[in-house]
């Protein structure tokens, strides 16, 4: 690369010597050479995505292309149910992560450095741990003979084991515990950048701590809340593993449907169509969450209208 490509451009073309020309071209082309392998990898993904859309257009019989698979998905109430169930579960999981994660993020940013460091270490340990294993841990916790039920029985709160697993509630709890580290990291990284003097100013002007929290910290942390919610919502909506293990066949989400159709039944066109709808829904949800939070924020005056 050249030290300063702009300098090279000011040399008139007539005065170009061959080595200088070569250097200008090298400077212009080298970024393309550098990104080429990455672009090739992404190209594979894009090619694969287009073959997914193509596959989804294949009819149930014959090679004619059409929207038959999408019509089937829209018409069948069972198929529609997979999508509404997934959206409902993802919404509840996101809400749960927000309620559980925000206090942790806030606590992390207000406590001593050593405590904060310990929490970060713990969250990274969770993040680095195998996800299958973490869901398995929840089976041990929430199963009929699991720790939670034993504790409830021992405390005399219930007389017979409660069914925590194999239900939507179990899947939602699993997704909350599985994804809450993402929410905590997203919010805490924004909270750590808030200028502490703003709170001193609020206190000087007579705001109580809860008022300052509500009127200053919460609005300023909105970007973290939004990005955390988007991550958690997407991960929850697309989850395969949690419903497969904690739902025990009683809770079917889109990902499970796609897998069953593709691998067990080898009905590739229908699986492809469901995956395509999932992809579009994911993108739509990102846009919707972004816009929704902004709108809500502006109404209660916590997002700057100019943004």
């Amino acid at each position, binding site marked *: 690369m050249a030290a300063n490509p702009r300098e090279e451009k000011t040399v008139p073309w007539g005065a170009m010597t061959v080595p200088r020309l070569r250097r200008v071209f090298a400077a212009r082309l080298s970024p393309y050479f550098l990104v080429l392998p990455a*672009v090739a990898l992404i190209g*594979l993904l894009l090619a694969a995505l287009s073959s997914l859309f193509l596959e989804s257009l294949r009819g149930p019989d014959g090679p004619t292309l059409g929207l038959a698979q999408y019509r089937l998905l829209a018409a069948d109430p069972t198929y529609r149910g997979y999508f509404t169930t997934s959206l409902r579960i993802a919404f509840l999981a996101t809400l749960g992560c927000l309620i559980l994660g925000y*206090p942790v993020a806030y606590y992390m940013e207000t406590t001593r450095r050593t405590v904060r460091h310990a929490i*970060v270490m713990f969250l990274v340990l969770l993040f680095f*741990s195998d996800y299958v294993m973490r869901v*398995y841990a929840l089976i041990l916790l929430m199963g009929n003979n699991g*720790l939670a039920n034993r504790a409830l029985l021992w405390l005399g709160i219930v007389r017979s084991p409660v069914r925590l697993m194999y239900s939507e509630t179990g899947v939602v709890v699993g997704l909350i515990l599985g994804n809450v580290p993402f929410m905590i990291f997203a919010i805490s990284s924004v909270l750590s950048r808030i200028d502490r003097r703003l709170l001193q100013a609020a206190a000087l002007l007579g705001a109580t701590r809860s008022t300052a929290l509500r009127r200053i910290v919460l609005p300023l942390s909105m970007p973290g809340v939004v990005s955390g919610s988007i991550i958690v919502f997407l991960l929850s909506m697309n989850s395969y593993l949690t419903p497969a293990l904690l739902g025990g066949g009683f809770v079917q989400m889109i*990902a499970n449907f796609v897998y069953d159709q593709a691998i067990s039944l080898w009905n590739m066109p229908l699986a492809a169509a469901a995956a395509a709808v999932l992809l579009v829904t994911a993108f739509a949800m990102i846009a919707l969450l972004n816009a929704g939070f902004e709108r809500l924020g502006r109404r209660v005056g916590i997002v700057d209208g100019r943004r």
Partner: protein
Amino acid sequence: MADESPWLFRAATLLAIAALGVPLLLIAVMSFNSTPSLVFPPAGLSLRWYANILATDSFLKGLAYSAYLAVASSLIGVAVGTAAAFALVRYRFWGRSLINMLVMAPLIIPEVVIGMSLLIWFSASGWGLSDLSLLLLHCLIVLPYIVRIVTASLQRTDRNLEHAAMLLGARPVIAVLRITLPLIRNGIAAALIFALVISFQNFTATLFLISKTQTLPVAIFGYIRTENDPTIAALSTVLIGMTAIIVWLTDRILGLERVT
């Protein structure tokens, strides 16, 4: 920020940490159970489930295969991703923001969709499912993490150091190799660790492209579905221990606060 959290927040934090930590402790306790049942508390103590890990073929093969995939895809990913990050940070070129967005795409596209698309593409194109298709998938999945971490690291380095080297007569390539790369060494190391972890534990997209050999997470999933004994608890305890060592080492060498 205020100096203290409201008591409600402190209580919620305690609850959250407990809810996240208790399952991991529970795994460790159950792994020493002497009976095959998963009833709490354990009936007696034994190490038989740890022995059973070594006796289960799919775990050993899965571990070897997952390790191979993680190492290969992380090394390829770091080479490809670092080059891309360098171009994206240091050059302004036509198509830059588009490429910037595309490189992050595997992060936003649902894993099921990635797995499903590649399955269709590999079958339709005649390549078929092989070790190569899984390797390419894992390279794709780790790429965004690598580009993001290396980009952040590059943005923190001082470009003038490179200029100084070139003024002193170093050719641009030499300046980058001898000055810039050593400066972003920690970023590259962090990217490598992240890539290894992400690849090692990838489950959903991998599930679609499994052909002959299972990866470790897929083998564990299969075992949980068919068997009902604490072998997985024993294996998980080993994995948590290994993960804890990785986290501790990462913290000591790189500093987690800067990496995350």
